[in-house]
């Protein structure tokens, strides 16, 4: 990090920070159960749920594993699995 007056840094750089490494539990979506209601997308605080090719998918580069999507999913289509290294 550089010492800048006022701690001014270049903006719009958040995509460069892959916060997925913070996760200790991973949400796993069961496509068979998913009703495509979009609840998971709307509650995700990291905007890490996207629609790709008309299906919901979780972006593990940014998902911090908070579990909100699994908690809110009305179809119980998301389960949290322990991350292991």
């Amino acid at each position, binding site marked *: 990090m550089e010492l800048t007056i006022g701690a001014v840094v*270049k903006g719009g750089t958040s995509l460069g920070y892959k916060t997925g490494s913070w996760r200790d539990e991973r949400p796993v979506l069961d496509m068979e159960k998913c009703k495509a209601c979009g609840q998971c997308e709307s509650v995700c605080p990291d905007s890490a749920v996207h629609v790709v090719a008309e299906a919901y998918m979780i972006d593990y580069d940014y998902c911090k594993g908070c579990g909100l999507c699994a908690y809110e999913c009305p179809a119980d289509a998301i389960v949290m699995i322990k991350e292991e290294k």
Partner: protein
Amino acid sequence: MGVVKVLEGSEAVALAVKACRPQVISAYPISPQTHIVESLARMAADGELETQYVRVESEFSAASVISGASAAGSRAYTASSSQGLLLMTEVLYASVGMRLPFVITGVNRQISAPISIQVDHQDTMSLRDSGVMQFYVESSQEAYDTHIAAFKIAEEANILLPVMVCMDGWILTHSYEQVSLLSQEEVDGFLPPFRPADFLTISDPKSWGSYAEENMLMEFKYAVQQAMDYGKGRIKEIFSELSAITGRDYGGLIEAYRTEGADFILVAMGSVAGTAKEAVDQLREAGKKVGLVKIRCYRPFPHEDIWEAVKGAKIVGVMEANFSFGSEGAVSMDLKSRLCGRKDAPVVLDFIAGLGGREVDMAGIAALVERMEKASNDGVRMMEPQWIGLDPTIFSRGAK
């Protein structure tokens, strides 16, 4: 030169701010600051002042608006008092870290409870550690001049800090005084438009006050202290530049008043310095070797200038309208911090005077000098802070 008018202190400040062409003003009214921001709002509404006047629902928002405006490259201004300044505090600390050079008038008023709207310095003193530069003024004329200097000081590339001009509520803001005004051309010549190197813009997105880990945070804080240290010299130069235009010279960071050969030197800030000067004159006429140091710039604290003024004195008596509960007055702490290591440093006594608007008159100041003389004769080297004018009978009756 401009014109000389008899003005209410608040109006003088509003005219000084107007002449500095702030692009954004945001404020929430609180006594005794109200007349300043009312005047500016009227000037903006009448088209006399081209500015964005943002009305807000709290002082927290007022400070937030001007910090955002300042980050966007605008010259910005606000004013508040007492609880209002306390509500701004969180934003002001952040603004220091983001190095945003706006100007605030801190109209001094005591802090609740009990509620009172009378003057003391407890409110602005609570911001002394924030990194906001602080000036205290004695008169409406000095308030006018100091506001014009304040924008230039704040915006100096090697300073870039918020600057607060502190003025006593009611005594200065609501009394009428002859004030000499500068012409717009003179102010424009002194204060160029604000053109920061960095500012918020959509074409080049940046973020202010970003994250600092434990390996960098101390360096960011030290950079603020460097700006304060640099400011000591630059502030004097800026005041000199202004003096060359106004013909008025208040001294630099301090005003040393009849301190030559003085054995007993009073230290004061704000309007009480005027009363103290009169008292010093009378005491000098009576053959007493008394002087006064008026602190104009409180942050950065003028340790060296004060030493130059008080060396050789026997006793320095600090009259201050603030108190750090559990300890003593803040000004005496500041003063002693660098005097105590000096050879032959004078003894510093702390007099708490004028809390909540308690009258400090010439007789009171003369009595205070007598206490300094007695302490000197008795060989006193230190003393508990003395609360001046406290009525002991109230305590003998006990709390009900």
